[in-house]
């Protein structure tokens, strides 16, 4: 995702969107990025890579991953997040879009992982998500 920020630094800044429009763009980035992470994590959890690698080797395991429909949808979700980011960066400052989307994704991933992947998100992990969210926001400013 930050690769998009690197490319966006080369684009001329545009400042014409309202607050709601910018919030919607940030929401779209966070949604697609979270969807991508969620589907890829789910795909990798369902595939028994150790067993596949023992049977068919590294190449077979790699093939099983890249032909998994859930994994492919996850990559498409990540691509959606990437292009949403590029779109948002053509409407608002990188100093707003970058930190906001990067840090909010940590929290949305924690929420989504708890409810969809049924991960054990205890107090320690909530605290980690919030601390990293704030930290990434401050680091990107």
């Amino acid at each position, binding site marked *: 995702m930050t*690769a998009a920020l690197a490319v966006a630094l080369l684009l001329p800044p545009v400042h014409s969107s309202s607050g709601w429009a910018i919030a919607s763009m940030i929401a779209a980035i966070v949604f697609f990025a979270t969807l991508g992470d969620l589907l890829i994590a789910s795909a990798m959890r369902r*595939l*028994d*890579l150790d067993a596949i690698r023992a049977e068919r080797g590294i190449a077979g395991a790699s093939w099983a991953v890249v032909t998994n429909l859930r994994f492919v949808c996850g990559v498409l979700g990540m691509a959606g997040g990437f292009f949403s980011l590029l779109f948002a960066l053509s409407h608002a400052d990188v100093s707003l879009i970058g930190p906001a989307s990067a840090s909010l994704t*940590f929290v949305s991933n924690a929420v989504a992982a708890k409810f969809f992947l049924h991960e054990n998100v205890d107090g320690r992990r909530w605290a980690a998500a919030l601390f990293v969210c704030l*930290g990434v926001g401050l*680091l990107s400013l």
Partner: protein
Amino acid sequence: MTTQRYLVLLIVAVTAPLGDTLLAVGMKQIGPVSLEHPALLLHAILNPSVAAGIALLIGFFASYTAALSWADLTFVLPTTSIGNVLIALLSRFWLHEHISASRWLGIALITMGVGFVANGSSYTEHAEPAAQPAFSGRTAGDL
């Protein structure tokens, strides 16, 4: 968690910010790319910095997906965010760039966040077996 798995997490943490940095360096060398001249993007791939950045990001994605096969998403993401701290510290002590007080605070918060998850378990075990048989790849009901 074995040493090999910590090494994979370290690769995830380091390759993403380094790859992004190399892409940014390469694209600054090439200059602005317009939609009227898309061939310039192909030329960009031949730039050593861009090529190295792409190689690192491919390594990042491979190690990231591998890590998600044996660790939770809520473990991998905060743990690997330490890469942002490493890059900030490298820029301070190697490139002698200025780091503001808010960035130092960000570094401290990320480090504390990583400390929270690193001390806990990395994987949530579920009661029901969720793994697919080794011979099955894509199926109609996969989603």
